[in-house]
């Protein structure tokens, strides 16, 4: 069993309620932070922990906090990004649904550190029942003196509000989220200015993911230094992975980032191996935006070294032969899955979720989607593969926000690693409607790539 910092108590009977959460040691960290530490101490502690943003980008949280502008007389805000929408990712939902007080406690500590008296949780609109769970938890925290005016007689005031989105993946991008929270269309802002200077209602704002803010609780409890000892290198602490696809045990797992990808997939402690005794074909290890990897490159790096479940190792080889930790949405595809079809659903997803503000994303995502539909309907042309490649290349890096990149990368990686499958789709149009290309040379176990 690995270390568990977030989910340790997630399955204690009644942990959703304040009484049980408190009995199990909850709000100890909030008490410690508010009573014995200054806001700057908390920031310092988070810096020491090496905690990196768990939403996808992996930016050091302490550093992000230290960028927050503190002009005299202007309120600052902390906003919790609970707009979890990246295909393959359902870890924040798990945290909020099972152990909501952990997030609330994390928010109280973080609000204290950043000086946010009004903190907002922006949650995706579809998680409607979780809004009730969170509001209940907030009410309980308030009733017990953890929120409101003059918390623990420290003079610190804090309120937390839950704001529901209404169906838009783009609102997971922090500036689109802020626009949405201001009651507008979720169009990402053009940066600079960054939210740390001009965020919500033009006030200095920090936006952090649910898991990131929850992780602040164990950091305060065990100290940043101890937290940093867990994991490896710059991948400190624990990370939630939501595993799905063709595995025996889909679900949310907490790992300490020292285990290998192979262990994660095949061990009974985690995914429990590939379902129905099939073989592993490919995997998208960090949410739909990150590059897909064929089994051989997933388990071992191009250099033949074991690949581990952490930021650095998953990125080994860059985008040529590696991928990314991303949001921790781990999608496993077995030998029966068709890469073209799977990528087509993702192309459709990004087309559907593009806000339409900037031309490369608005036009490019829809063009790619149309080409994928053509490939899927058996009318593809050989030139479509290069065309897809060119379109994704022209989108990548040229858009206002990272959605353009997120739409481009899966297509690029699918073509890079599975070009022969695309070609087969075109040359065997009829057959491709009935069966998939199969394993070819991607399966595990496999000869190691050069």
């Amino acid at each position, binding site marked *: 069993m690995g270390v568990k910092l977030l989910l340790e108590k997630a399955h204690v009977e009644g942990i959703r309620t304040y009484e049980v959460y408190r009995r199990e040691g909850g709000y100890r960290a909030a008490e410690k932070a508010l009573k014995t530490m200054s806001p700057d101490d908390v920031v310092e502690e988070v810096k020491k922990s090496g905690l990196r943003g768990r939403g996808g980008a992996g930016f050091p949280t302490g550093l992000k906090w230290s960028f927050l502008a503190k002009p005299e007389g202007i309120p600052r805000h902390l906003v919790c990004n609970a707009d979890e929408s990246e295909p*393959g990712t359902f870890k924040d939902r798990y945290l909020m649904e099972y152990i909501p007080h952990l997030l609330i406690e994390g928010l109280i500590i973080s609000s204290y550190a950043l000086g946010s008296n009004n903190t907002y949780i922006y949650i995706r609109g579809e998680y409607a029942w979780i809004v009730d769970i969170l509001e209940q938890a907030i009410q309980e925290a308030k009733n017990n003196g953890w929120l409101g005016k003059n918390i623990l007689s420290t003079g610190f005031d804090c309120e937390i509000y839950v704001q529901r989105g209404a169906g838009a993946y783009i609102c997971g991008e922090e500036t689109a989220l802020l626009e949405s*929270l201001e009651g507008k269309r979720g169009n990402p802002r053009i940066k600079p200015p960054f939210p740390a200077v001009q965020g919500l209602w033009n006030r200095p704002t920090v936006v952090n993911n649910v898991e990131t803010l929850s992780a602040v609780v164990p950091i305060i409890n065990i100290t940043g230094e101890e937290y940093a000892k867990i994991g490896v290198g710059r991948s400190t602490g624990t990370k939630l992975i939501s595993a799905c696809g063709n595995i025996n045990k889909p679900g949310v797992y907490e790992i300490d980032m020292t285990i290998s990808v192979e262990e994660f997939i095949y061990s009974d402690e985690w995914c429990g191996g590939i379902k129905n005794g099939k073989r592993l074909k490919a995997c998208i290890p960090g949410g739909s935006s990150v590059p897909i990897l064929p089994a051989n490159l997933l388990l071992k790096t191009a250099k033949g070294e074991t690949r581990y479940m952490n930021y650095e190792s998953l990125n080994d080889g860059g985008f040529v032969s590696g991928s990314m930790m991303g949001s921790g949405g781990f*999608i496993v595809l077995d030998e029966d899955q068709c890469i073209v079809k799977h990528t087509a659903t993702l192309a459709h997803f990004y087309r559907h979720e593009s806000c339409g503000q900037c031309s490369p994303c608005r036009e490019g995502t829809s063009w790619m989607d149309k080409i994928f539909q053509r490939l899927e309907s058996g009318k593809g042309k050989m030139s479509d593969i290069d065309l897809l490649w060119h379109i994704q290349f022209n989108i990548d890096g040229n858009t206002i926000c990272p959605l353009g990149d997120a739409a481009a990368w899966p297509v690029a990686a699918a073509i890079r690693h599975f070009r022969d499958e695309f070609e087969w789709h075109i040359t065997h149009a009829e057959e491709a409607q009935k069966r998939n290309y199969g394993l070819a040379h991607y399966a595990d176990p496999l000869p190691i790539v050069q």
Partner: protein
Amino acid sequence: MAVQFSQEKMNKVQEIIARYPEGKQKSALLPVLHLAQEEFGGWLSVETMDYVASLLNLLPIEVYEVATFYTMYNTKPVGKYVFEVCQTGPCMIEGSHEIIDYIKEKLGIGVGETTQDGLFTLKTVECLGACGYAPMMQLGKHYKEHLTKEKIDAIIEECRKNATINN
């Protein structure tokens, strides 16, 4: 249906507005639209949107812009029960397309259509964050996960039963 919140809902609106700093009541737009959609027949008519605009002191176009941006707001009438089936990658590999086809066959409607009795609408949606429990769909406030044909049958049956009781 006259478009006018009850006193109870009006209090809720005021409570929502109070979450934001003075003059930032536009922030209440998304929550109030959710509330309006629930109250006024499951969709947002022009009348409803204009009403929300007047409540929050916004221009009507600001409300139309927002309502058409987010997929959860229906700008056309929908059935009493809306089946929103996820079709993105992880659900697709677990057979969401078969589920969609089954619902189509069972209800005799296509995607985006409503049954003649006004009970059911079928929609396809993009990833709802339940990839480990695929295939899945949203029905009202809740998720229905690990869908099978049998489960769909049971859900439809239950909806029909509830509809009769409520009538």
